[in-house]
């Protein structure tokens, strides 16, 4: 037993050592956000953005709460669409035989090798042609296309983990393929759906570049774009205090979201493995 404790101690020690700088980082952000650098005194001035539009060094930021609402609507829409599209696609890649499947899968990887910024100008013109520029629909479609390949891959991994026998058994019991998919496979890949939901949420929540280029009005920004407004044209970042405050405001809900979802994650998984 003592050997086990020793081992845990070793693990904890190096984990702690690795993690201390991160802790320091977080503390620093809190300090920067709440201390006035000139007088060195505590103040919550940097959080004024929570109570109405503010202006910092010539950059005007609109009221934040409508932006938060936009962010939530946008992110959850993305999550839903992505799950609805990537789950069946991943299932097909994992289970069905079709012509060119192997190439299609390689193609998924190849898609990732195009940096998003490369395509943005062309994408812009396509949206203009489709009359979708400056609409949420347009930006959502573009954003989803960018992140789908990755999520299809993750999802496929989860489908591959589900033993064939499970599906086979359901189908010999008289289930149709679709029914087998819904009743047997889907519950088994729930953690996977959870994972891609989290990833697409995080990806959508932090989006700013697409908003900068594809959405023309400030009131339809989401929070990532709101923060990115604080970079000037010369790529100089202004007002560290305000950025830190915004950064904390932005990050805290996601951390809570993660802790919350992690618990579900674990439960689902343990339940799942018992079933197997």
């Amino acid at each position, binding site marked *: 037993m003592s050997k086990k404790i020793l081992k845990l101690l070793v693990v904890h020690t190096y984990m702690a050592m690795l993690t201390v700088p991160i802790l320091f980082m977080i503390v620093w952000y809190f300090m920067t956000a709440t201390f006035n650098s000139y007088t060195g005194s505590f103040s919550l001035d940097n959080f004024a953005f929570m109570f109405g539009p503010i202006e910092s060094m010539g950059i005007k930021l609109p009221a934040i709460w409508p932006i938060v609402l936009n962010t939530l609507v946008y992110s959850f829409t993305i999550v839903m669409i992505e799950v609805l599209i990537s789950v069946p696609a991943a299932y097909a890649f994992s289970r069905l035989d079709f012509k060119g499947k192997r190439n299609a899968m390689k193609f998924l990887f190849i898609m990732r090798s195009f940096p998003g910024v490369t395509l943005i100008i062309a994408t812009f013109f396509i949206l203009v042609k489709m009359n979708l520029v400056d609409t949420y629909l347009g930006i959502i479609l573009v954003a989803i296309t960018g992140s789908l390949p990755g999520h299809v891959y993750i999802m496929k991994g989860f489908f591959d983990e589900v033993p064939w026998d499970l599906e086979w058994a359901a189908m010999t019991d008289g289930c149709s393929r679709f029914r087998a998919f819904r009743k047997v496979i889907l519950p088994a890949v729930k953690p996977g759906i959870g994972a891609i939901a989290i990833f697409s949420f995080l990806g959508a929540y932090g989006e700013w570049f697409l908003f900068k280029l594809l959405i023309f009005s400030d009131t339809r920004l989401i929070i990532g774009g709101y923060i990115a407004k604080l970079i000037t044209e010369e790529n100089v970042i202004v007002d560290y205090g305000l950025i830190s405050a915004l950064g904390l405001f932005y990050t805290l809900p996601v*951390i809570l979201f993660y802790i919350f979802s992690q618990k579900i994650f674990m439960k689902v998984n343990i339940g799942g493995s018992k079933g197997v």
Partner: protein
Amino acid sequence: MFILPFALLTLTFFILPAIATVWMSFTDLDVKMKPNFIGLENYIRIFQDYSLGEILQNTIVYAVASLGFVLLLSLIIAISTQYFMKGKTVATGYRVLWLIPSLFPSVVFAIFWKYIFDPTENGFLNKIGMHLGAVDEPVSWITRYAMPIVILGTVVGSVSSNVILLSSSINSIPEDLYKAARVDGAGEKSIILKIILPTLRWPLMYITITTLIGFVSSYFFIMLLTDGGPMHDSTTLALYSYQQAFQLKYYGYGAAISMFVVVIALALTLVLLRLFDFDALVQPSRIEE
């Protein structure tokens, strides 16, 4: 049927723009937005660019070094928290802490590093260094060690999404497997090597390829931290492409450089797919309708 929506989206918002971008790279597109076809001129210019060698080298150093550290750190953290400390609150704690840097938007993340390596006495490292007497006067860290600093920041910021992926894979390993192995007298080392790592093969392949490609094609964090400087010391190919296209407004030339980035990423992908024996991973389906 299952992949129709996926295929449609891909066609409209990936294949079409990709073709258009390839075409752009053969034009002199600039702010006038009146592109003229100029053949291979842009590509010839890339290969004649005197800074190309240095920029390519930076790209490789940046991508490979970052990838190495990211893989190492993600594995350590994932195995520690999901195997050694499985189910403990403290494990979640570590993972959440590591998650935070990757959650900060680049803008927010970059200012931390700017503070640490600030060239004046107010910078953290300079303050510590001068207090300890290690340096006599403030050191301009970012000008001297641009690339290592960029790599450090990138690594810290990209570890955690990989940790999530690896952890969930480790988590799917049934406890019984460990128990059986321990009964057989296996030590921790062989459990990690024989049970955990093989399970992680698919996620590791995924991480390696996506992270590497991500690094080859990323530019934003570098732009905020050093803007590729001093001189071209921390300029990667993707950043160079962005600078040419957006900062200097030569969209055609920028597109040509980014096609070059794509070719590199593509080559890397194919090599890695072969290395990981991709074809063996695509299992044939055994169920017939």
